């Protein structure tokens, strides 16, 4: 059973500030978020690498696996599905994903707290 608590949208930065196929870290309501801009659109996930506990996912390499947009942890290279947050290398491991949109050239993020 997944309960989703929806918070409000927070404006983070100009969309031009996001380099294609690269991530940045953002601070939203005190939480560290990793933001990515890829050819498939914008993605937001927790910045915390669940395997190491370090806040580094925004610095991973963006790519694809079998058509799925991905990011690889820069520490030990586990690959995550940017759409779902699921780790594609370790069953049962996932990062929280968040809502992200671009409005009037501004990137906005809305946290999801799944529990």
């Amino acid at each position, binding site marked *: 059973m997944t309960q989703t608590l929806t918070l409000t949208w927070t404006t983070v930065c100009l969309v031009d500030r996001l380099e294609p196929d690269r991530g940045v870290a953002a601070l939203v309501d005190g939480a*560290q978020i990793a933001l990515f801009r890829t050819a498939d659109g914008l993605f937001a996930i927790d910045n915390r690498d669940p395997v190491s506990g370090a806040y580094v996912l925004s610095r991973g390499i963006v790519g694809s696996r079998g058509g799925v947009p991905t990011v690889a942890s820069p520490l030990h290279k586990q690959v995550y599905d940017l759409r779902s947050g699921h780790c594609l290398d370790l069953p049962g491991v996932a990062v929280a994903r968040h809502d992200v949109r671009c409005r009037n050239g501004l990137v906005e993020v809305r946290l999801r707290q799944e529990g």
Partner: protein
Amino acid sequence: MSGGDLIVIGNGMVGQRFVDALRARDPQGSWRVTVLAEEGRPAYDRVRLSAYFDGVSESELNLHTPHDGVRLRLGEPATAIDRDRQVVTTAVGEYRYDALVLATGSYPFVPPVAGAELPGVFVYRTLDDLAAIRAYARGRRVGAVIGGGLLGLEAANALRLLGLSTDVVEFAPRLMPVQVDQAGGAMLRRYVDDLGVRTHLGVATTAIRPGADGRVAALELSDGSTIDAELVVVAAGIRPRDQLARDAGLPLGPRGGVLVDATCRTGDERIWAVGECAAVDGTCHGLVAPGYATAEVVADRLVGGAATFPGADTATKLKLLGVDVASFGDAHGTTEGCLDVTFTDPATRVYAKLVLSDDAHTLLGGVLVGDASAYPTLRASVGGPLPAAPLALLAPDGGGADAGALPAAAQVCSCNAVTRGDVDAAIAGGCADVAAVKACTRAGTSCGSCVPMLKQLLDAAGVVQSSALCEHFDVSRRELFEIVRVRGIRTFSRLVAEHGRGRGCDICKPVVASILASLGSGHVLDGEQASLQDTNDHFLANLQRDGSYSVVPRIPGGEITPEKLIVIGEVARDFQLYTKITGGQRIDLFGARVEQLPQIWRRLVDAGFESGHAYGKALRTVKSCVGETWCRYGVQDSVGLAVALELRYRGLRAPHKLKSAVSGCARECAEARSKDFGIIATETGWNLYVGGNGGFRPRHADLFATDLSTDALITLIDRFLIYYIRTADRLQRTAGWIEAMDGGLDHLRSVIVDDSLGLCADLDEAMARHVSSYSDEWRDVLNDPDRLRRYTSFVNAPDVPDPSITFTRERGQPVPVRDHPPTGSEPTNGHRRQPVTLGLPEVRR
């Protein structure tokens, strides 16, 4: 007989092999083993003895493996065997035995001529002999070798390497009379002549004459001539060491040696003999393969087995004075009615002969000189049908000799008695590459000559080794490099669109980034390239476990002024960085947050530092010892060369990291032989070693070229590096690259020394481009506001430092707080961090 006290007399190659074989068959340790060794060092590889003169160290030749329940008594030769009391006597005491194995080997035969005992006359048998030859050769000019067989030619090459002008005297009418025929010997002589070694064939040495100082000065020959010789090596054959057995009253062979039957048992049921001292059914064998076979037989018998000596494989393949020579089976055609097929090409200096049965269907033996590539397949085919038409087999590239045609019973690896059937079974059991087959069957782990056959057998079994980089590219890094280079592609998006699929990943993106950087495509963070870089290259610093980075400024050659050292200290203090000296003679500053990196670089760059590329698959350091400037042993300026090399190759991106070192003398304090390219000073120049590394699989570098001038050295390193960068696989260090190369070191030499592929001008030009286009990556970022923008903690809160990075103090320095318990499905892998301070005195600060 199934246990008790076992004494082994002798710790040579076969003695050691026997102990290894017994321990493998007797895991319970029912035999308590004592090995009595005459030499002061444990077993070493006598077959590769001459490699000692190529700079191979004693430890690399070591063959000794310690086993539980085996006592090794070095420097304690047996002096007598008392068969009634079952006791072996040494200078130290007595050892009782339930079983005794004689592995005393052989001794060099010295012809009974006057002067054989003069100072300056040596034999060529042990490491001590070689060390004595090397010491005596110093300052002398002319040497001679008595004996033109296998060992004699090795000795001649050794003298040549020691700088002596060398004569070889051989009683037989040709060189290597045991292994090759007259025509093969004649071909071999052409090679030997070219090396400046003079041969005197069909003559005997009648006397060894001293000079006025009482030391050896000349040889008198049976044809009346005299040759000058300040140093003489006698390599006129070997004789079995059977004195102990003789004194103990054991039966001997007709020409010496301890007589044993096919079970390797002597006339005494408790005593066995193995290796060169054993006369199996009356015949002694002076090669290691039959010796190993006797060791296996006795080990098997001692645990109740029924093994018998399978017959001697006298096949030999070796590289003598740079020439491939091989001989196998009935090389001299002594079988009645046999037919010879020969091939002689004076232009390429290749000679080959096959000996066939009278119906020309069965291969009986052969001789190969100049090109022995067909040897493994031919040797394995002896006694069976020809694997191809004779002329195809003899073609210089051995093109017709394919292991795929061998029967299952054919022996692929004679050193370890592995058949094709064994290899096929290993492949069927899941071995998918040569390394796995070697590990599983032991084939190819001794002399290595059958390794090409293992590859052919994998091919024959239909095992395809994929070279695809990842799901986005079907080609290897090497092929990708060529595509990028030849087509002039400069972006990942174009490359993946034209030659791959998908959007790339953490495997192919850094590979392409490295290829683009190697080809000189601007700053590594320019445009789209930035998105390809691993985080280390992206931030030009090294990511640590807590998400912080470490910073390593370049300290070329490990040489640093006090002023610069103070700046590093001030930067570390002001930014509260943990400071540690690295193995590469520089200083690593840990615990920097991304937004601090440009500030730290600014301070360092202003003081004259630049990036040390510790974060890149690139040249790291060129380590050095202090060299002849200060050291009383140094013979060249090792620091000066290290600085020059580090500045020349700084920033050079490669398939993997590159490390180097320069030692100022043969004492090798800079540990150059553990580097990708290492340089060791000589009296007259530099020796270049390539393909070394530390790490998970440590490997010593191989000697590549000797006594080079500085210019010649740099040219060779330039070509070595660019050729490596162009042709190595992803994350393949130079060692693996050379090992995987067809033809290995010789091929590499032909490409970058002899320019066999016509590449050298291109390689030289590529390095010249690298050297002239270098610029400091840190400084380039500091001068570019766009690049600087990346160095922020949070895109929407650049003034807030990452709150997850916190430090505690340990031994007076900041270290990460370890409060990140691993989550997810990965257990801790049994990882337990061990406390290291308990009970230890605290270091005073």
